[in-house]
């Protein structure tokens, strides 16, 4: 117990004293995950909105596929991205393996289905409510997409935060494609795994505290947004 307390104190001092190595890892983690989430949003949100509004053969199957991809095992995603980026893979020539870009790609693959599925769900509910009114106002199905995306903005920010939560806490895929190289691809989760196995619990604990802090912050932001939406009557029925 005394050992744990001393490791924890050491961890706190690393955080509070602004340990360069620790904060470099935190910064890289944030950079990778924020980029990944933004790219996922750019891809996933229009796809989700299109799935909600458009009517075409195979739409239902596509929705099932997107929903299924939300539960795709991260290590399998890591393996597939690794195969794509490895020297003998189709994208090997780009030499992206073991770089932050490879980690971003892996996180994009993981987070995009979440963005698409949540967006589809939110927009479909809103479209059902708005459908007759927008048609009455002369808004076409295609033109209704930006209207719906804007009016669902609070719910979509929640989706964005959910995606970020998933990305920042991810370990399996990024360790495969990033390689956990010191000062290059070492992020919070992979460092925690490595340092714990080495017995360097202080750094692992410090990163754990920051990760938990981020998770709580993200959840608090989601709750605040939900509360605001409820207060303003902006939530979907």
């Amino acid at each position, binding site marked *: 117990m005394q050992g744990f307390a001393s490791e924890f104190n050491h961890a706190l001092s690393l955080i509070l004293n602004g340990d360069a190595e620790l904060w470099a890892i935190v910064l890289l983690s944030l950079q990778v995950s924020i980029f990944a989430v933004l790219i996922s949003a750019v891809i996933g949100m229009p796809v989700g909105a299109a799935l909600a509004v458009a009517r075409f053969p195979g739409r239902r199957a596509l929705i099932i596929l997107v929903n299924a991809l939300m539960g795709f095992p991260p290590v399998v995603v890591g393996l597939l991205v690794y195969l794509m980026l490895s020297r003998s893979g189709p994208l090997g020539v780009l030499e992206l393996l073991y770089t932050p870009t490879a980690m971003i790609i892996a996180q994009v693959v993981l987070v995009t289905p979440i963005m698409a599925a949540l967006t589809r769900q939110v927009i479909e509910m809103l479209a059902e409510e708005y459908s007759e009114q927008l048609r009455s*106002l002369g808004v076409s199905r295609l033109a209704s997409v930006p209207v719906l995306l804007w*009016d*669902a903005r609070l719910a979509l920010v929640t989706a964005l935060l959910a995606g970020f939560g998933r990305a920042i806490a991810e370990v399996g895929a990024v360790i495969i494609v990033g390689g956990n190289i010191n000062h290059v691809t070492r992020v919070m989760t992979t460092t925690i795994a490595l340092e714990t196995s080495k017995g360097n619990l202080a750094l692992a604990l410090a990163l754990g505290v920051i990760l938990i802090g981020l998770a709580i912050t993200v959840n608090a932001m989601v709750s605040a947004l939900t509360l605001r939406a409820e207060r*303003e009557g902006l939530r979907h029925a």
Partner: protein
Amino acid sequence: MRDVVTGTPGILEVSNLSITRDGKTLLEVPHLCLDGPGPTLILGPNGAGKSLLLRCLHGLIQPDRGRVCQNGVVLNADHKARQAMVFQSPVLLRRSVAANLDFVLKRQSMPRILRKQRIDALLAEGGLDGKAGQPARSLSGGEAQRLAILRALALEPETLFLDEPTSALDPSATQMIERMVLRASARGVRIVMVTHDIGQARRLASDIVMMQAGHVVEHGIAQKVLNEPESDDSRRYLAGGLVT
């Protein structure tokens, strides 16, 4: 289009309209001509087909058979662009009160400065001054319905369809809505409104369409339909009997 000679709004005409679902006739209207000078009110019990008829007139629902014409021309996109509809539960965008009005004005490519003036004028007309920046979804039921009507009027429609706009409102809120409807009618907007409220029909209607089980059982001048109904269904309904 409003007739420049007589001053009456465009004539809506329905021919051989029919909607059937699972072998059940939901709407069967051989002929109906709405050419009166003032508001037309559609009365009848639940399931009579009132809202369905309204949606057909507005082109929101395509009938299985038959057609809707405006001034003798089959309802087309141009006609629809000059119509507006207000629903029983107002569907307001998740934006401010002013942004709900701005949405339709922007679609008309109105310059920003004119939009601002028009929004102010509309808010004053609906008694919503001072609420421009308020989230539309936080308005009371009566205010929300008034905003929905203002948004419809912002389109400067020739025909305004209203589907039981006051069914959930108290007398004071109902009175405000009725005044807005009468003002729009006085400006030459053709009003076609569904209601259950016989008193409202007495207050507003120029002509009344009585419906029962998907059929028009009577159509005529309001005074005549209300005081000397010709059909048994109309008589029972107007006498306050339970018409099922």
